[in-house]
């Protein structure tokens, strides 16, 4: 059945419903609209189309706005009803072709059905994102791995003690100490895990807008309106602003120009040669990823240190939004604006990265306006063996960082310390 056919049926039915609601005779309404009662009867039973002018006359006769008899809003609602029907289990088969009738005769029930279907859809999306988080969240994966390691140790060690047989006193003492240490580690890790899972419930949304945008970027930044990852209005607004900025920056530094310049491999020399700001060159390298920068990542923070863009290089230890390692050179750059800081950093996994950080200051509202600071860090995986030793030992965030002797630690780690 075509859309046009549906709207014709709907209009006729709505005219009839409206007339009956007013307790008016068919002949009276027909006369007021300038048509015969027989013709109105055909219209009301959806056997004749209703033209635009006739809709206006009937609307006037029925003391209702023409838009209420018009087709647009209802068609959307009918489409929503059909969509709700499609999503039902196979063994439930509502009369899809009677959706227009349902909407016209029981608009309240139809609205309730549409709202329920949309709610179910939203919950389904939340379930998918929650499932993704459970299987990909680095914090959860690390913590669960820690729990399993401690449990493995406890189980093996306790079994040794329970199995009997001769155990030298020094080994027995060592196993007791290990059990004590592992049980402590297990309890603190389990508490941290529960607190973390509790925090899920406290959140209004499963993902923050920033996380939605990150997921969208990771999916290749598909068109905003069609992007499944952008569930909230805030996320879509962020995504549009991001696209606009990317477009402006691409216009300022076109792909072809950057691709040639990138053969140099040194962003500072590239910026000098191109006569472009270094921060622009860094951002464009992270987006275009020319040869030599294929695995480039980029972190951006504002003057408060809050991360506003997180596109890490593969293997770079990135915690959840709102958390970070204070030793990242990105934050050092905030203290020395307009001075590039190049550092080789090593993650707890042993992987090394070359980083280039730069902070810039702006006064977008003029000399009387506030000074805004932004820092960014370009991240590139280091060639194995390229640097003898790293400049900095960094981590993801204190809670999931195993570096026990870190001078920047602000809270205990839930991990066994290295």
């Amino acid at each position: 059945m075509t859309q046009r056919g549906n709207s014709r049926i709907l209009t006729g039915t709505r005219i009839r419903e409206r007339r009956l609601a007013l307790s008016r005779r068919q002949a009276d309404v027909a006369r007021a609209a300038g048509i015969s009662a027989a013709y109105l009867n055909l219209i009301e039973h959806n056997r004749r189309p209703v033209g635009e002018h006739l809709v206006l006359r009937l609307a006037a006769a029925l003391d209702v706005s023409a838009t209420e008899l018009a087709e647009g809003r209802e068609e959307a609602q009918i489409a929503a009803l059909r969509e709700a029907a499609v999503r039902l289990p196979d063994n439930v088969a509502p009369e899809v072709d009677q959706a227009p009738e349902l909407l016209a005769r029981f608009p309240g029930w139809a609205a309730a059905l549409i709202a329920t279907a949309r709610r179910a859809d939203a919950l389904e999306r939340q379930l998918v994102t929650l499932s993704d988080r459970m299987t990909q969240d680095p914090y959860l994966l690390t913590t669960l791995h820690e729990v399993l390691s401690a449990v493995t140790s406890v189980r093996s060690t306790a079994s040794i003690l329970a199995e009997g047989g001769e155990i030298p006193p020094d080994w027995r003492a060592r196993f007791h100490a290990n059990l004590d240490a592992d049980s402590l580690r297990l309890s603190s890790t389990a508490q941290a895990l529960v607190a973390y899972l509790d925090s899920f419930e406290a959140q209004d949304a499963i993902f923050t807008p920033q996380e939605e945008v990150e997921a969208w970027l990771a999916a290749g930044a598909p068109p905003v309106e069609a992007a499944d990852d952008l569930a909230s209005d805030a996320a879509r607004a962020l995504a549009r602003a991001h696209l606009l900025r990317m477009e402006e920056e691409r216009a300022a530094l076109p792909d072809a120009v950057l691709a040639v310049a990138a053969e140099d491999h040194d962003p500072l020399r590239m910026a000098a040669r191109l006569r472009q700001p270094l921060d622009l060159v860094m951002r464009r390298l992270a987006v275009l990823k020319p040869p030599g920068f294929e695995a480039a990542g980029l972190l951006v923070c504002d003057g408060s240190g809050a991360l506003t863009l997180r596109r890490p290089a593969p293997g770079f230890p990135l915690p959840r939004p709102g958390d970070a390692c204070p030793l990242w050179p990105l934050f050092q750059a905030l203290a020395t604006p307009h001075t590039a800081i190049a550092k080789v950093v090593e993650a707890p996994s042993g992987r090394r990265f070359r980083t280039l950080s730069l902070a810039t200051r702006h006064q977008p509202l003029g000399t009387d306006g506030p000074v805004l600071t932004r820092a960014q860090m370009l991240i590139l995986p280091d060639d194995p063996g390229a640097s003898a030793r790293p400049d900095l030992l960094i981590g993801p965030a204190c809670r999931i960082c195993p570096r026990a002797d870190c001078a920047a630690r602000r809270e205990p780690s839930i991990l066994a310390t290295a």
Partner: protein
Amino acid sequence: MLDILMIEDEPNIAEAVRFILTREGWEVGLHADGLGGIEAIRGAKPRLVILDVMLPHRSGTEILAELRGDHDASLAATPVLMLTARGQATLPAPQADAVLAKPFANDELRAMVRRMLV
């Protein structure tokens, strides 16, 4: 020749496993880092390698791939028992001879090692 070389970065697990297997009469060596793991295998030439998947610097699967590609054919064929915290179904190491999911029972460990060393 060493019977077993275990590459495991969790010291308490490594200690417990070494005790369990040593008490069975096998000689067990330990290496605690992914870095240098393949060199430790080449140096010890053990009859069996027990290899954790998640290791610092270099994962167990990377070490296993390197071992299987070693130019010394007999070394490359060394039996490998992988220890994983993620279950056998998700283990990305088809080249392993056996997989043991953490946590495991000591009897399970002993039986598996016995089978692999026969």
